[in-house]
Every structure is written in C-alpha cells, then in structure tokens.
C-alpha cells in the first residue's frame, strides 16, 4: 500500500471515529484486501483466512470509534487482523487436540475393528436381553464355563436351543433375515 492510500485511510478512519458514515465504504475497501492477504499469508489456508479476515474486519470497525488519530490506521488494523489470525489458528489447534484426545482409538491402526467389536457386543447384549431367564443362564454358564443347574445331554440340548433362539433374536433384531 502506498503513502497516498495510507494517509487517505488515516483521514477516513478519523472521520469514521467521529461518526461520519460517509467514510465507511471507502474504509472497508481500503482495508479488505490487505487484511485478506495478511490472513492468507499467516494461515496458509483459504477458508481459515476468509474467516479470520471477516472476524478482523468486524473487530476493526467495532473499535473504529476508539481509533487514535495520532497513530497510523493501517498498522493498527493489521495488528488486529494478525491477532485474529493467531487466535483462530490457536482455536483450530486446540479443537484438533481435543478431538484426538476424545477418540484415542481412532488414531490407532485397528480403529475400525474396535468400533465394530463395540457395536457387535452392544447388539449381542440387546439380543441376550430378549431371551428367557433359563436360556440366558445356560448361555452365560457356557461362556464362563460354569456348571449350570443341569449337566450332560440336557445341558447340551438346552445350550443348542438357547443358541438357536439367540441367533434368531439377533437376526430379527438387526434385520439379518
């Protein structure tokens, strides 16, 4: 930006600080491009730069009435924009860290397997809940290799029947028929 435009911006910012709305559009035009360029250079990301640039414009014009006319306007505006870019970058970084912390398994190589297993266990528990107490007792005893109230062929038959019912329940619950 050249000296002429800098001094034009200084004068316009002073007018805007006094409440002269006629200076608004030109101030916006003079600030828009340098701020977008600065944000693009700092953030290296088009979308982030656009967001930070807009936030910066809001902040600058919000503080326009407090503008100190003894100081040049452009460095003041760019300082605000730089701060906005830094804040946005920090916010994005923090969010990324939080996301990683909340889902540690996602980062691992078996993330998909873990999710599938978790879903499957939940589905099995739901299917188990649909069975009768006797069937549930038999299946739990089988799983833990415990002695049920009955043993031998009776237990084997009950186990087969319970497993069969569990399979059917599972299929009907999750539409696998």
């Amino acid at each position: 930006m050249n000296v002429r435009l800098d001094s034009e911006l200084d004068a316009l910012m002073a007018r805007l600080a006094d409440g002269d709305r006629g200076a608004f559009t030109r101030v916006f035009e003079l600030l828009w491009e340098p701020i977008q360029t600065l944000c693009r250079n700092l953030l290296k990301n088009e979308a982030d730069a656009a967001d930070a640039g807009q936030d910066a414009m809001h902040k600058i014009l919000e503080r326009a009435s407090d503008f100190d006319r003894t100081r040049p306007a452009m460095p003041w505006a760019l300082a605000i924009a730089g701060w906005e870019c830094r804040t946005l970058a920090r916010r994005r970084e923090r969010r990324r860290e939080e996301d990683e912390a909340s889902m540690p398994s996602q980062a691992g190589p078996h993330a998909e397997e873990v999710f599938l297993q978790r879903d499957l266990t939940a589905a099995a528990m739901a299917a188990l809940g649909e069975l009768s107490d006797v069937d549930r007792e038999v299946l739990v005893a089988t799983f833990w290799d415990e002695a049920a109230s009955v043993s031998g062929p009776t237990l084997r038959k009950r186990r087969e029947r319970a497993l069969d019912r569990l399979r059917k329940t599972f299929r009907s619950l999750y539409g696998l028929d």
Partner: protein
Amino acid sequence: MGSTDIYSIQRRVRRTYELARLRRALMGILPVILVTGVAAFVATRPTAPLVFGLVTAFAGAMMLWHGKDPQKAFLPGVIAGLVPLGLALGAGALHTCGAGSCSYVCVPACVLGGVVAGFAVAGVSLQRRAGVWFWVSASGLALLTGAMGCACMGSAGVIGMGLGFGAGIVPGLLRRVFGKETR
C-alpha cells in the same frame, strides 16, 4: 469471493460498527441517569425530573450514537444544564413553605441558571468555532437537563429558564453572525 458476498460482509460489518457506537452511547449517558436519580431524590415531586431525565438520556444517547457535532455537544450541553438544575433543586430544598413561596424563589433561580447556561454554551461554541448543529445540540441538552430541576415548579420554571437561556445565548449568537460578516 463474489461481489455479493463482499457486499453482505460489508453490511454485517456496518451493523457491528453501529452496534458498537450504540453501546458506547449507552455507556456515555450513565452520568445523565445518575443526575436524574439524584434530581428525582432531591425534588419534592420526582415525576418531572424523571420524565425530563428520560428525555435527556434518550436525546443524549441519540447524539452520542450519531456522532459529529451533536456528539461533541453532549458534554458541554449537560454541564451547562447542571447550573439551572442545581440552582432550582437548591432553591426548592431551602423552602418548606407553600407552593407560591417556592415558585417565587425558584423561578428566578431558573432564570439565572438559564442565563449562565446560555453564556456557557455560547462561550464553548465560539471557542470551538462550532457549527450550527453544535449550537442546537448543546442548547437542547442544556435546556433538557435544566428542565429536570425547573419543571418541578411547573411550566413557569421551564419558561423562565428558557428565557434566561435565550438571553444568555444571544450575545454569542450575534458575535458569531457578526464574526462571519466581517470575515
């Protein structure tokens, strides 16, 4: 980014600017609200100070929000108006007698306060070589602020203050006009 997008961003930023000015204006009228509270507390009939205080606060907020000459006139206007307000409240507080006796003392106090306020507004306006809007805004605010005190004696107090203010401001106005002609 398209021109429509930039236009809508510009509109949003403009709204932010206006809201920020409004916020500042509302902060700026806090002294007026404080003065109104004190005037209503001191006055025998608090309705008039409250009504005029509300109008003063609203007018002051509009002036501060608008900016330019009316914004610059806010403080001189309020300070000049404190003279008739203070004199009127003081005169009212000194008397516990009937309404006739109070008005007898308070109306002159309001006239005197008005003259001083008029001189003050004219003096500041001339010193700053202010425009018409400064004169109008400062005078309006001074009269409204003074009316908070003078209205408790009825319209006579306000009219007296207005006449005094007019008398006080005339020399300054003539000097302004005369000064312009000689230039």
